[in-house]
């Protein structure tokens, strides 16, 4: 009670639990109410009316992987930037120089990826 900030996590945890209860309740009720009559055709994969050939887990373009790599790099940066931004007013000029330096490094990284053609799809 003395630290409402930490007790907030309890609130959020309760909401997560309530969400799970709701979803499980809804699916269970629906499962009881709805018919259950699967046939072979009904369970077939939908491919615009054709009979599906082979597995669905095909190879997909490498571009997705590169975006994931870029994302990991920049998301770690965000963690740093956000925690810096919160206490920026107390850091004064030192914090300002730090972040400008940091953003310049970030920009060089993005520029490198840009020149390499990574940010262009295909």
């Amino acid at each position, binding site marked *: 009670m003395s630290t409402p900030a930490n007790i907030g996590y309890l609130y959020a945890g309760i909401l997560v639990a309530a969400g799970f209860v709701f979803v499980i309740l*809804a*699916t269970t009720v629906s499962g009881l109410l709805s018919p259950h009559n699967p046939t072979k055709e*009904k369970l077939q994969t939908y491919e615009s009316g054709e009979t599906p050939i082979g597995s669905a887990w095909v190879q997909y373009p490498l571009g997705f992987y590169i975006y994931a790599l870029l994302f990991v790099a*920049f*998301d770690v940066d965000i963690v740093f*930037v956000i925690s810096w931004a919160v*206490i920026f007013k107390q850091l004064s000029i030192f914090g300002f120089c730090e972040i400008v330096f940091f953003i310049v490094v970030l920009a060089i990284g993005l520029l490198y990826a840009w020149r390499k053609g990574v940010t262009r799809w295909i």
Partner: protein
Amino acid sequence: MFDFMNNPTVALIVATVVKGALLIVILLTAFAYMTLIERRVVAKIQGRLGPNRAGPMGLFQPVADALKMMFKEQMIPSQARAGIYVLAPVISVVVALCAFAVVPIGNNWSANSGVHSIWDPFIGDINVGLLWILSISSLSVYGIVLGGWSSGNRYSLLGALRSAAQMVSYETSLGLALSGVLMWAGSLSMVTIVHRQLDMGIWYICAQPLGFVIYIIAAVAEVNRAPFDLPEAEQELTAGYLTEYAGLRWSLFQMAEYINMITVSAVASTLFFGGWSLFGLTDGIPILSIVIFMIKVAFFLFLFIWLRATLPRIRYDRLMRFGWQVLLPLAALNIVITACTVALGGDRFWWISGVAGLLVVVVMLFAIRRQGILEGTHFSEVETGKPVLPHSVRLVTYEQEPELEQDEDSAPSVSQPPLARNSNTVQV
């Protein structure tokens, strides 16, 4: 009878459970009526009527839809990985629901006196509130990717991958755009951010116009709404990650999408538009603050519908390029501008970053338009002075077309009647 409420811990838990249940009910009702309003508004914009049969003005349509979904068969395709296939919509919905936990819906019941009550209109005032929203909403990628992957369908797999790439690309810009607000507020707690805006006397939209524009674009991409709804592009991918889902599981995914929309709208109005405040109007009457907050959220929801009805879907490569080459550098620029202003002298100089941000937005609009003309996505004029269709929409390549007999009056003239635009190109 209510003796147990005298124990503060028990009272706290009871209050939280009640508020949580109330919040879930409100969100689900909002979702149901959001679908109806969206269909009605889009119909209005397109000159149709929309659903108006079930009840007065179609007001019972969501009830009918919900009942229909309850009674539909829940099947698992034979190629699907059953466990993950069942789990994916659950992840989506739970994640969408609990992201809303830290948003302050209204003022404290005791107004601005600073006295907290367990029944204040927010679930939890976590001191890392904004970080909670960012991290939880990025978890919603899991629901979509797992659902698409486990369906055992190529459309689903491709839609899920597209969605994942799109969401992670725009998430970086989203996070960077929000850090400008954090610099002004100096706190991650949503309740504190609203109070800081009251102390400063302005809404942060005035100090952060660039940040707001970036946030709203990235938010539309985050929740996979038109014009960024490529994961569900019907013409290319049937229904994307939703292809193999039916019945209640499908509507769980829908539910998650709409609740995410409500969440990003609530975050936008909290961070940039002063949350529940309106020029001191709510000082005396706390209940009014809830109404004002709802009106602000409703405005953003209407904006989502309006965008969907107005803009065509953009191409996937352009989407990714826009995210990485325009939004991300601009978000970094926004941080630098804001940092300069805050370092210069704090709250008094908010207008400097406001004006600079607006300037950047205007320059960006002009640059995008110019780039569009250069790349041929806008109407451009060739040597004859006649406007021609861009490459991407032309039916025949312009270069190989035999020279048509031109009239003598085709001397360079800047303004042609609009009908002349198609005359060169549509004859196949």
